[in-house]
């Protein structure tokens, strides 16, 4: 499972699907997609999912910590009530690159990235207007 090409935990792209399932909850499409995918491979995860993405799980804890870092960052989130959502984060993330180029948002020890393109190479170039500002 760790290196699975679709839902493995060793790559940012695939690991992000587990975070989507954690945030979406048990009734989300992302949660159902993981169950269905591994069920199709003969692995029944239904009893394991609470340990993997439920409350108290490692993914849950890291997700909460990271979301909190984001919505308490006054340079990034400008909406009230503050939330770690696309609507709240996008103005700061795009306008001043305050998501990627801001150590406040990173869990301790994680290397800073320059742009969203570092996470999404398919974009081809930095999408943030703030990336091009000095």
């Amino acid at each position, binding site marked *: 499972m*760790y290196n699975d090409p679709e839902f493995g935990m060793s790559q*940012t792209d695939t690991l992000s699907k587990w*975070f989507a399932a954690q945030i979406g909850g048990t009734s989300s499409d992302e949660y159902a997609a993981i169950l269905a995918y591994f069920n199709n491979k003969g*692995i029944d995860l239904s009893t394991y999912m609470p*340990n993997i993405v439920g409350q108290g799980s490692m993914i849950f804890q890291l*997700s909460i910590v990271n979301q909190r870092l984001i919505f308490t960052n006054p340079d990034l989130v400008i909406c009230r009530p503050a939330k*770690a959502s696309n609507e709240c984060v996008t103005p700061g993330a795009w306008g001043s690159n305050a998501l990627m180029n801001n150590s406040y*948002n990173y869990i301790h020890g994680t290397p800073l990235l320059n742009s969203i393109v570092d996470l999404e190479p398919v974009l081809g170039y930095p999408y943030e207007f703030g990336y091009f500002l000095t």
Partner: protein
Amino acid sequence: MTDAAWLPQKSVVNYTLDYEYTQVVESVQNEEAAPVPGSVQYLNLGAQNVWYQMQTRPRFILAWQALAKISNYFYTENYLNKFYAYNALEYFFNDYAAVQNYVLRGLTP
């Protein structure tokens, strides 16, 4: 859009004038020179403005399209989940043994 050309038939637009000059005394309103309701032809200033910018600002349309694409990405893609995953991978999930012990405990590798 690199070979865009100005359409002369779009240079003039029609609009209906129905504004009433309520502050003007009646005797003036009745004068021949006073505007009356009806259809008026007017230079399409809005289109000319856009056309002027297209002609004088290099890659204007490309910049507009790029902005639309970027806006769509930021509002519709789950880039925050990828940000969380990146942090989690660097902080903990790059350690296979730890993941097996604390996340996938009980599951066959």
